[in-house]
């Protein structure tokens, strides 16, 4: 085979695979709308093109197979045969078989020795006796003309190239280095505002930001690569169990990191399979319950606050919490006295319990030992979460939330024994600082185990220094990071809590891999590596093995669930303010040199937008000019989302993240302040970001 042939085969493989994916989707759609001639024409064309190219390349067995498929599709087009589930199944099998042959062609350069006799017979069987071989009677639809004439297929897209993910990872590493170098140059450039470095630095800054974003984008894949195949899967499952199920898939274009996409596959498959198997009722039962015979499984994806939310829902029988509770009690997972106190939501949560879901799944679910606990733990591994709501008789809804990318995630830097460690921010619920007196009053020692009473809940304490063999923190106070990871909740005693940062998590090296308390390593802003703590691993090492159940119905627990909390900030002059964490996009350290002035306003080139900056201290002091910045300093800036776009709040220091414990006391009277909350016994003003933005706009207009 010469190189020209090899190239043609490669094109053939690429194009055929793309077409076959579409073929599956079209067939399933066609089953729902058999009269759609356009769909039918496309399905026909795919098979016809495969047949034509096979003839050209000399793959006679595949040619014969696709010929049989073409005959059947031709008869469908002519209206001689009506599409039914049997025909659809045969055609889907045809698609699968063609794929298998394509894989063989790819690895060996030639087709397999199989003559596909059984499948050809099956396809021909749908035609009935009068259509022995009528392919030539059906004209070929126009767009496939070149292939039909024996010409090599044209490439589906001339504008894409395949890139190894390893190359993108390396690029990402190098961009990270570039950002560090840029930050160092920023400091040099800041010394002299009109110096020779100023202009080139600006260009460097812009190019670096765009490069960073570009590489990040390049790693994104549409989530449809995972979700779209469920059209076919649901159909096959439904036919298999004799149910009628319609699939609705939305948001296929939503881009997520390839690694996240891969991690989503199995959990989604499990949820969808459950929905068809257990959720949707048999058609007769549905009609008896006053529902349409056809059930619906819906999979939708959307961006939501820097994460991706995927919902899997069905309109089936729903989950009965009482049955779950009975099962939990029967299998010893739940004490009978605890069962009565359980709220409905907590009862539903039981389905994720490892001791509960697996057993019944194995028997009911085609023998696959994958339970709902595995769904949750595999999502946990990528920083994702899953929640369930259900209404008996109406259906079940699973909400999955995953980060956009695995490689960049917000983190909290903590100190222990003179070293910095990073914890994924999603694992840190809040940070509590106790002075000696508070620590004495709220921390109990129960036979060597320290327990902290947090708003009425008992929180086991894990001393990070002890776990890592580091010297204990100095002083009598305690700094506790409340960690929740893999359903284990505990207080981690650290020396102190540092900044929040964005981290790129890299795998540990071979020699350091087996240490259970570390999840990876990241390079901090100053270029020094820092270990990433594994919250679940730490818990296990410290002897916390059972998942900590949230107490039912308490205000604190509810607050944590529904409310992302508040980011507490200090202003340069020592005041304390807070913003809703839901608004916070990023925390940045903005070099003074990169701040530009437009009239009276300060702005910052931020990605490809202009970010208006607001000095919080100036806002709160009714416009008093803030102290001049030191040259070369970096301004801690909280980038917030508002209805009018992004705004950067220049603050003094990021202090803490706390759950919203109380409704803000309204009526502060000042513009830009929504009210006050009490955080750690101190009055903290809650900023009204929308009002601040409105003022800014007025200011610019005048």
């Amino acid at each position: 085979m010469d190189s020209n042939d090899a190239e043609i085969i490669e094109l053939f493989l690429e194009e055929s695979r793309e077409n076959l994916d579409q073929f599956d989707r079209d067939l399933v759609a066609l089953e729902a709308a058999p009269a759609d001639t356009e769909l039918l024409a496309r399905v026909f064309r795919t098979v016809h093109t495969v047949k034509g190219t096979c003839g050209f390349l000399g793959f006679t067995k595949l040619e014969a197979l696709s010929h049989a498929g073409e005959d059947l599709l031709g008869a469908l087009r002519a209206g001689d045969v009506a599409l039914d589930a049997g025909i659809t199944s045969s055609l889907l099998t045809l698609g699968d078989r063609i794929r298998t042959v394509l894989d063989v062609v790819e690895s060996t350069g030639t087709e397999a020795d199989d003559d596909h006799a059984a499948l050809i017979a099956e396809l021909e069987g749908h035609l009935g006796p009068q259509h022995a071989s009528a392919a030539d009677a059906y004209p070929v639809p126009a767009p496939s003309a070149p292939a039909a004439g024996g010409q090599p297929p044209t490439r589906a897209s001339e504008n894409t190239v395949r890139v190894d993910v390893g190359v993108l990872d390396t690029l990402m590493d190098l961009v990270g280095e570039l950002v560090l170098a840029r930050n160092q140059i920023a400091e040099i450039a800041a010394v002299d505002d009109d110096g020779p470095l100023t202009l080139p630095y600006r260009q460097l800054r812009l190019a670096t930001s765009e490069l960073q974003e570009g590489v990040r984008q390049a790693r994104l894949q549409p989530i449809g690569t995972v979700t779209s195949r469920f059209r076919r899967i649901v159909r096959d499952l439904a036919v298999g169990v004799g149910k009628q199920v319609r699939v609705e898939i939305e948001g296929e274009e939503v881009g997520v990191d390839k690694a996240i996409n891969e991690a989503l596959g199995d959990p989604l498959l499990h949820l969808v399979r459950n929905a068809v198997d257990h959720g949707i009722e048999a058609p007769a039962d549905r009609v008896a319950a006053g529902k349409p015979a056809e059930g619906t499984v819906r999979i939708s994806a959307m961006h939501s606050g820097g994460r991706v939310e995927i919902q899997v829902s069905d309109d089936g029988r729903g989950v009965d919490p009482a049955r779950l509770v009975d099962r939990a009690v029967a299998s010893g997972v739940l004490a009978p006295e605890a069962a009565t106190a359980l709220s409905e939501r907590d009862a539903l949560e039981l389905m994720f319990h490892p001791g509960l879901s697996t057993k019944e799944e194995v028997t009911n679910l085609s023998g696959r030992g994958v339970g709902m606990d595995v769904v949750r733990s595999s999502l946990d591994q990528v920083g994702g979460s899953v929640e369930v709501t259900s209404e008996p008789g109406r259906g079940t809804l699973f909400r999955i939330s995953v980060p956009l990318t695995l490689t960049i995630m917000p983190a909290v830097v903590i100190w222990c024994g003179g070293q910095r460690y990073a914890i994924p921010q999603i694992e840190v619920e809040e940070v509590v600082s106790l002075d000696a007196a508070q620590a004495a009053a709220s921390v109990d020692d129960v036979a060597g185990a320290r327990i902290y009473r947090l708003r009425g809940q008992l929180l086991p304490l894990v001393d990070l220094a002890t776990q890592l063999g580091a010297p204990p923190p100095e002083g009598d106070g305690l700094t506790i990071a409340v960690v929740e990871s893999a359903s284990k909740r505990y207080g981690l005693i650290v020396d102190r809590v540092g900044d929040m940062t964005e981290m790129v998590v890299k795998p540990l090296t071979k020699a350091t891999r087996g240490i259970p308390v570390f999840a990876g390593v990241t390079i901090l802003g100053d270029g020094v590596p820092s270990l990433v703590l594994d919250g679940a691993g730490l818990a296990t090492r410290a002897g916390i093995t059972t998942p900590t159940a949230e107490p039912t119905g308490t205000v604190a627990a509810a607050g944590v669930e529904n409310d992302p909390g508040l980011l507490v900030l200090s202003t340069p002059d020592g005041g304390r303010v807070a913003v809703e964490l839901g608004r916070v996009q990023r925390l940045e350290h903005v070099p003074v040199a990169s701040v530009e002035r437009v009239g009276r306003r300060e702005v910052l080139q931020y990605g490809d937008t202009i970010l208006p900056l607001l000095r919080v201290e100036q806002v709160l002091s009714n416009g008093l000019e803030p102290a001049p910045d030191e040259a070369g300093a970096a301004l801690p800036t909280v980038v917030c989302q508002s209805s009018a776009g992004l705004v950067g709040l220049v603050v003094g220091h990021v202090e803490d993240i706390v759950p919203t414990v109380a409704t803000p006391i309204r009526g502060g009277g000042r513009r830009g302040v929504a009210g006050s909350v009490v955080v750690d016994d101190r009055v903290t003003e809650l900023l009204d970001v929308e009002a601040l933005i409105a003022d800014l706009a007025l200011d610019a207009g005048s």
Partner: protein
Amino acid sequence: MSDERYCLLHVGDLLLGVEVGRVQEVLGDVPVTPVPLADPSVTGLLNLRGRIVTAVDARARLGLPPREEGQGVANVVMTAGAETVSLVVDAEEDVADVDGLNCDQVPETVASTIRTFVTGCYQLDNRLLLVLDADRALTLTATT
């Protein structure tokens, strides 16, 4: 050819040699991040242009006493399998050409902790060059 030239490394009183071709680069005393609970010969992790590199202390590997406080080190960066690893030595010297010299066996009187990591030795003018088995020295099994 490259087998004939060795990078000379000082570790305690020993003079070790690593094939020049193995050495990717030599760094000075760069900051490393210690890894608690890791193998004691892991001094930490360092950042080599965005790549995370394990620093392995040659003294600890060879069973030699630890360095004195404040004594400088050199990081000899080498590839080990798919990873990049740094061998932490006391100092790095020139390159020695052993073309024409005989590779002798290491005498059995040399401590076994050292012999394990040495494949042979060359008699230089007035010194003994121990050829380091870099793969063995840099391969640490993961702690569990």
